Every structure is written in C-alpha cells, then in structure tokens.
C-alpha cells in the first residue's frame, strides 16, 4: 500500500486557527504521508507550520457554500481549526487525514523514516537495558542474578530478554513458575532498596483458578526472595485489585496467592482504577477543561465528577504504602494486579521515585521509564492509540502512563528541589507516548520491537531529549540532590490539577514561561559567578 493512494488532494489554500492566543496563519496546505504542512507563502516571514498526522486524535468537518472547516483535535490535547477554500478540497483533505492518522502498521510509521540531523541511528538504544541496572544491584547484594531464560521470548512474550531473579532459583524453575503466572510474567526484581536490604518485586496474577492450584516452583521463588533479603524477612503482596475482584478472577483461571502456600507473605488489596473507567475519567476531565463557558460551581462539580484526582491519590498512596513497607517495615514487596502490565508498573515505578534518589535524576528517570515501562512490557501501542478526543474507542486504551506522569508532577510540585527534571520532560514524555517521531514508545513489548527491528531502524527518544539544546526545557534549574526518601502528602488538599498539561493550550502560557526563564537566568548567573570564583580562591593561598 502506498501513502499516495490515501492522499486524495495534496494541497489547498487554508487558514489555520490555533486557539484564542495565537494569531491565525494563512497559506498553502500540503498533505504528505506523515505530516500536514502549512507554508505561509513567499510574502510572509513566519516559518513553516508542521503537524505529525499520527498526533491527530479526532477530526470533524463542516462545510459552508464555498469552503470547509476542519477541526483537528490532537492527542496532546490541542485543538486546531483549518478553514479550507473549496468544498471538495476540504472534504478530500479531511478524509485523507482521517485515513493517514489511523494507520495500523508499525513499520510504515514515521519513526522508520525520521532521520534528524546530528543523531546517529542506534545511539542511545543501549542506554538503559536491564543489564545496566543489574550491575548496580550486583554491587549492592549478591542474592540476585541476571537470567537469560527469556532469551527468545518463549517464556514470557512481554518481558525483555534478560531479567533479574533470585540467585538460588534456576532457569527451569523460572520457566515452570512462568507457566503458573498470567502471560508468563513470573516474579522478577524491580528495585533493590540498599539501605534496608529489601526488594520490590513485580509479576502478574497466579493462575490458581477455581481449583486453587499451586505451583511449587513459584512458591520456592517467592521464598527465595525473602531469604535473599535477610533471614526471617517478611513480605507483603500488594494486589492492585479489590479482594472481591481478585476472588472473581478465579472463575476465569486467575486468582491470588493462597496464604498457606506462601509462608511469610501477607496480602493487601489496594484497588486501583484501570482500563476503561480510567480512560473515561481522562475524557471527562479534558471535556471539563475545554469548556470555557462555565460557572465556578459547575467547574468544581465536573472536576469532582471526573475523579481524576482520586485516581492520582490512590496511585500515590499505594506507591507510598509499598515504599513504606520497604523502608520502614523492612519487608519485601510483591506488586501485581491481573496482567501486571499497568497498575503494577504504576506502583513499582512511583515507589522507586519516592525511595531512590538516583531515579530522581535526569538519567535515572529516563532509565526508570525505559526499565519499568517500556522494557517491562506496558503495551504503549494499545494503551496510547487514542487520547481523550477520539470517538473510535477500543477497550484497550487507558491513560495509565499519563497517570504516572501526573503523579510524578505532584511529587515535583511538593518537592520542587528534589527532581532533576522539570515539567518539560513530563510533557515531552506525554506527547511522545501518544505520537512521536522517535521509536522508543512504539509497539507493546520488547518482542514486538525486535520483530520490527525498532532498535536498528528508528531513533531513540532518549538521544533526542539528551541533546544540549533541550536542556533548558527539560531540566529543573533548582535541583539539589536529596539523599532522603520524599514522602508526598496524599491528602486531597495537597493534590492539584496539572494545569501545565490539562490547560496547556487553553490559558496563555507566557507569564509562567517568563518566570521560568528568569529562574534559569538567576541559576546560570550563579553558575557563572561560581566559575569565576575558583580564580579568586586560587589566588588566596598565595596571599
């Protein structure tokens, strides 16, 4: 199939409206396989305007007598309006955009064609694999080893090739334990908390089923986790479903760990919203934010009705529970829900952010996202196929990753000096997770990425973000390394709507950006004066 088959009209005269703040743009509209371009014509000085078609979430067309209006709602929550001359042309363009923005095939997507200047293919792809994290764990403890039991993805299709497991459990036992867990996701190490010697482990639900089956290797594996921490250590299993839902899962072959079969482990249920309801919450919140003609009361009512902040609160407090269990109780924590690819990752990654100062650095956070989300098999392609505006809803979409970013933003707001990255990085990750010229968020698992040769044929987002020119946008100028755990407040009084994301295109950004620029200036001034200081102090001993 060629893109040209889908492009009915390649160009037309159009006017682009970009919300109440930006001035309208006039020029020639061009449609290519991956982009929508607006060239302002020779007399104008402003630059070419470009939109990745993949980021169009929904499209709405209206026609008048001799022109048409297309409303494009983007996945990054922007709303654009195109006024196109000619009814026929506008309908054709609308249909072409519709077809091109919803292409299913991965290998014809833009990342496979994107070749920016200054980046080399394959540059940052070996940046953060689990092997790298294992090196750190190996320095801290001897109880864990790197297993390549999943080398060909046959044991668990959604895990990476290498996983970190207890040293005392051999590969055969791992494979048998995998058969007892949904999707083969047997318990693997997520984070080793060196100060207390405890670990955070994640998996999917055990397949106990209605007969309450057991698996000796799985039990052995969890026993080995406790023994590896320290003799007599306790463990908590944080199940991200309600106990009701967990019991019901037995009917479909799933279930939870039986108390008797896993001595030393205690089960806690902390239900987290997932899937459809989470997506609906997101949709309702975006709707409420987009409605500018409402009273204070109805705004508050809608904010309450969409429950988004309740989800933020639940996610953060479950992560705090896991972190508290490790740091304060000295217990090992196993987190799982049903599939172990959504709320499980939310909890494990947030708990690490709370406990681990390294994951709060720029490189550490990127590594965390790569390890705990991308490599750990969060199905980005399914979850982020559509954002809040699309009418075509499949049941796989859910803004779990966005919820994670929101929780990180809340942490950053409560501890403005403790994160090395700023809001800019979180916004960039949100954008790129939904539509990106980079290959990092493509596909649903490491296995699929290998099949599509993503690593060799696309650029990594991390190399794009780590270019020096992005620094000011992404970094937090006020960062001061903080070796302590950061315990956020999860009372509703302390949680806030993430205006920078949800109101990003609605309210004028200038004043806060100017203030941010000023902070940068003060900080760089400080660095400058600091640099000049050694020359002064160097002369001091000579005095």
């Amino acid at each position, binding site marked *: 199939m060629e893109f040209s088959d889908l492009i009915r009209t390649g160009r037309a005269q159009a006017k682009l409206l970009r919300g109440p703040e930006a001035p309208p743009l006039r020029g020639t509209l061009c449609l290519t396989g991956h982009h929508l371009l607006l060239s302002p014509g020779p007399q104008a000085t402003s630059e070419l305007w470009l939109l990745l078609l993949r980021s169009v979430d929904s499209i709405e067309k209206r026609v008048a007598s001799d022109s048409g209006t297309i409303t494009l709602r983007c996945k990054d929550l922007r709303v654009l309006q195109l006024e196109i001359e000619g009814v026929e042309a506008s309908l054709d363009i609308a249909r072409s955009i519709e077809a091109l923005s919803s292409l299913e095939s991965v290998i014809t997507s833009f990342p496979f064609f994107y070749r920016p200047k200054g980046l080399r293919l394959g540059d940052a792809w070996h940046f953060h694999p689990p092997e790298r994290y294992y090196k750190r764990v190996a320095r801290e403890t001897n109880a864990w080893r790197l297993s390549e039991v999943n080398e060909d993805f046959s044991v668990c299709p959604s895990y990476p090739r290498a996983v970190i497991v207890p040293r005392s459990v051999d590969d055969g036992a791992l494979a048998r334990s995998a058969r007892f867990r949904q999707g083969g996701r047997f318990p693997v190490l997520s984070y080793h908390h060196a100060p207390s010697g405890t670990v955070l482990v994640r998996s999917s639900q055990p397949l106990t089923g209605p007969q309450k089956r057991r698996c000796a290797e799985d039990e052995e594996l969890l026993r080995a986790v406790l023994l590896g921490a320290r003799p007599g250590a306790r463990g908590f299993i944080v199940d991200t479903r309600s106990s009701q839902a967990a019991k019901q899962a037995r009917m479909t072959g799933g279930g939870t760990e039986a108390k008797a079969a896993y001595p030393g482990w205690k089960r806690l249920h902390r239900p987290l919203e997932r899937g459809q309801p989470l997506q609906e919450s997101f949709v309702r919140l975006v709707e409420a934010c987009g409605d500018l003609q409402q009273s204070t009361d109805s705004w508050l009512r809608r904010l309450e009705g969409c429950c988004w902040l309740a989800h933020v609160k639940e996610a953060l407090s479950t992560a705090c529970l896991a972190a508290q269990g490790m740091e*304060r109780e000295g217990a090992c924590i196993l987190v799982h829900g049903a599939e172990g690819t959504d709320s499980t990752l939310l909890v494990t990654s947030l708990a690490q952010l709370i406990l681990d100062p390294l994951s709060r650095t720029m490189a550490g956070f990127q590594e965390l996202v790569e390890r705990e989300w991308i490599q750990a098999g969060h199905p980005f392609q399914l979850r982020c196929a559509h954002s809040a505006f699309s009418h075509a809803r499949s049941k796989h979409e859910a803004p779990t990753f966005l919820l994670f970013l929101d929780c990180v933003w809340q942490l950053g707001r409560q501890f403005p000096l403790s994160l090395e990255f700023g809001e800019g990085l979180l916004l960039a990750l949100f954008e790129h997770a939904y539509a990106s010229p980079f290959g990092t968020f493509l596909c649903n698992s490491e296995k699929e990425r290998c099949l599509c040769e993503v690593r060799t044929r696309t650029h990594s987002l991390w190399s794009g973000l780590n270019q020096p020119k992005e620094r000011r946008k992404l970094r937090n100028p006020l960062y001061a390394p903080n070796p302590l755990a950061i315990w956020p407040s999860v009372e509703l009084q302390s949680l806030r709507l993430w205006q920078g994301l949800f109101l990003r295109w609605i309210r004028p950004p200038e004043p806060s950006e100017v203030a941010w620029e000023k902070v940068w200036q003060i900080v760089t001034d400080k660095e400058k004066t600091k640099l000049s200081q050694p020359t002064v102090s160097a002369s001091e001993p000579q005095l």
Partner: protein
Amino acid sequence: MEHIRTTKVEQVKLLDRFSTSNKSLTGTLYLTATHLLFIDSHQKETWILHHHIALVEKLALTTSGCPLVIQCKNFRIVHFIVPRERDCHDIYNSLLQLSKQAKYEDLYAFSYNPKQNDSERLRGWQLIDLAEEYKRMGVPNSNWQLSDANREYKICETYPRELYVPRIASKPIIVGSSKFRSKGRFPVLSYYHEHKEAAICRCSQPLSGFSARCLEDEHLLQAISKANPVNRYMYVMDTRPKLNAMANRAAGKGYENEDNYSNIRFQFVGIENIHVMRSSLQKLLEVNGTKGLSVSDFYSGLESSGWLRHIKAVMDAAIFLAKAITVESASVLVHCSDGWDRTSQVCSLGSLLLDSYYRTIKGFMVLIEKDWISFGHKFSERCGHLDGDPKEVSPVFTQFLECVWHLTEQFPQAFEFNEAFLLQIHEHIHSCQFGNFLGNCQKEREELKFWRNMYHQFDRTLHPRQSVFNIITNMNEQNKQLEKDIKDLESKIKQCKNKPTDGILTKELIHSVHPESPTLKTSLCFKEQTLLPVNHALRTIEGSNPADNRYSEYAEEFSKSEPGVVSLEYGVARMTC
C-alpha cells in the same frame, strides 16, 4: 496579668491534625501576657498571639488528659492535651479572657515595644503619605481638586480629611449629595488614571427609596462625568446582587435610577454581603480541616462553600472596572451598601490591575492605606479585634488578599512581593501588633483556585514543601554579592597593576597588594561569610527550616511503627504520607 493563673504546664502534648497515627509532640506550655508559647522536646517553639485566637474549646476529658483546641484567625489550629484537668481549665479561662479585649488600650499594639525611639516611630507612620500618592496619580489638576469639606469630619465621619472631588462640584453640592448617601459617604475620587483621564470614584448607596431624588447628587455625578474630557458617559457599578439592592429600597435606600441621572450606565455585579462571606469561609475551613476526605466530599464541599465563586465575583467586578477605564476611557463610580467592604475590594483590585505601581511593595502598602484604611474599612469590627458583635466579623480583606494572590500566581513576574508578604499582612490585620489596622475609620484612629498555603500554612504534614522562593532569593542575593566582590577585586587589581612596576606576574602582584590593602582582605572574608550560610541553606533546605522540617518528623512517625504495622496487616493502611 490578673487573668493568668497558671503560667507553665509541663508534659503537654501537641497533636497534628492531619496525621493519622496520633503522633504527638510533648513539651511545655507557657502562658504570657501576650502569647501562648509551646516548646517541644526538640526545643522548637510555637508562638500563638492571644489576639490571633478565634476560638478556644475544652473537649471532654480523655484517659491521656484534657484536650484543648485553639482555632486561630490566621487559620492555625492547635490541639493540645493537658495532663491535668485543673491546669487545662485555668489556661482555658485565661485564654478566654485574654483573647477578647474590651478596650483598644488593652491591645498588643499599645504595649508592643520594638526598641524604637519616638522619631523612628514617627518615621514609620510617615512612611506612607497619601497626599504624595494623589500627586503621583496626577491630581489635583484642571479637573480635580482637593476639597476641604470634610476637614473636621463634619460631613462624613468615616471618610478621611482630605478628599478629592471634581473641580466644578461646589461645596453646597457636596453637602447636599452627602445627605442623600448612606452614612454621608458621597462620591469621591479613589484612583485617577492619568493617561486615560478617567477616574475611579467611590461612595455609598443613595437614599433613593422608591422614588426620592436629590438634585445635588445628580449634579455631583454629572460633574464626575464632565471631569473626564474623553468620554461623556460614566459607569455606576453597584457591587451588590440586584435582589439585595431592591430590598434596600424598602428601607429608604437603594440604587440610582438611570432616568434621573444623565449619562450614566448602571450595572449590578453581584458580590454577596459580609454574612454570606463569613459563612462561606466557615464552610471552606471545615472542608480544609477534615482529613482523609474522598474526592467527591472535598470538591462538593469546596463547591458548596462557594468561596471560589465569591472570589471570582470580586475578580470579575475588578476586571469590568479596569476594562471600562482602559478600553472605553470611561470613569466609574463604585458603591455597595455603605461603601466600605465590597467597594474597597473592587476599587483596590481594579487599581492594582491598572497601575503597576500598586504591584510593588511600597505601592501595595499605599493601596491598602488609601482604599482600605483611609476610606474606613472597619478593620476592628471585621477582624474582631475587640469583644464585639460576631455578626460584624467577615473575611472581606482576606478575600482581597486572596484575589491578589491569584493574580501573583497568574502573573508571577508582575509583582515585586510574594506570597510571604501577603501572608504577613494577613497575619497583622489580626495581630494588633502594629497600629495600622486598629480602629474602624480614620477618625476613630486618631487613636485569597483558593489559597491553600494560607489555609494550610501551619499543617506541616499536609504541605511537605521545599521552599523555591527562599532558594531563589538566596541565589539572587549570593549572585549580587559575588558580582560586587568581583568588581571590588577587579578594581583593586587594576589599582595595583598601576602601582608596582613589574606588575606582570600575578603572584607578585597579589603579594604586593596584600600588605597595603586591608579592604581586599575584608572583602574576601566578607565573601566567605556570606557564602557559607547560603551554601549551608542550600544543602539542608529541607531539614533546616522548621516549616519544611518533615523528614525527621516522618522518621519518628514510622519508627513508632505500631499503627503502621496494624494497618498494613489489616489491609486498610491509611497513610498520610
């Protein structure tokens, strides 16, 4: 002092209202003539000014002691547990007496002595000169003049002595108009926009009833609109809801009839009265003070308190006012019922939007002095300084401060001052520590998306915050200091380069500098001194500042891990972290 029976109680516990683990600090409670002081085992001091106390409650006796809850006007709530009931009772009674004074002379301001001599004290009072301020605005000029009509407070007791009115309004017109206005508060100038030649004027409601007219009042309004050469019509903003204004007509008051006044455009804005605002704040504080709320409880509570709706109404009115002046160059007359609550809010906020001077520290003080203090906002009654009618208490000024805070959030670079300044002002309208906010008007004186940091500034478990502001200020000061040092050093080096003949080698240069330039050495030492504390602050920003001191607290909370374990085991772990 006669009210104080017990001055010191030991082994008192201070509870944290947002902590779920019933964590408490144990320490000693001291009662002084002006403050209640609690010193915990870490020697951390909590000072509570008696004037800040809004409510003292003694709860039912428990096994651990007698609980004493103190609610403060600056939204601090402290929960003590006093081991012996008799001590608790003594303190309770003393606080009841001390927190409500009957006479101005008993207020803290009259005993507060900050080691100033009389001239310094006088200078403090002369810091803000309103005549100077009107000169800055550009009055008097060809259209506006200073009127001496109220020199002896004869026409209006609650207005200041100096009032600016249109030049063509004669004294009989002013006197006539004042008789037609509630409490004699006739239309006068509040702010003059020199560039647009338009004015903000303020007054109280007219005594129009159902049909009464007053020619002098009509003349005065006409004079105001004539004083504006650009635009002949003027806006009259009644900041009350229409229904309230209509109801006032039955009492012989009311609002301007558009038919009787030429060239006016009449407009209601709908800000609710002081009683609505008081109960709204009450509801807001109830919602804020509850721990472990669900999302729906929190937001429906927030919504039903109506607080944000009221804030928005005030902002909307100020925006309307500012637009009328900047877009249409029209003068605006603002009034409510008596013209000292809503009118002050709208006039001052409108001026703040129009004039960047009011967004500086000095300018903001001038604005408060002009629109609130001199025009007779009843601070003493609204803040409950003295034991008086509780129905007169209302958070009108608090709302104004919150509106300003919202503006600082939206325009972070437009203001010279920050949240701390606003909080400080809020603190002092209640503290009675300084004389500025005492009394209800100038004559008598010849004797806050809702603002969480104010409503929660004392709840340390709820606001684990590192202070961005402190660190930026530190950096900025450090930068300035370093730059100054560099300049000093550079100039020294230049000087020295000229002196020695072989000034090429830096080593020798500095050797030669040293003995004869003590200034260089002192400046270096000075630099080290200033650097050290700043760096120290940078490193320990979370631990060093008691307000941010959270981690050590948490360590205590978790190390007493009993509740944590129990809750973990039952799977219902509720956490404050």
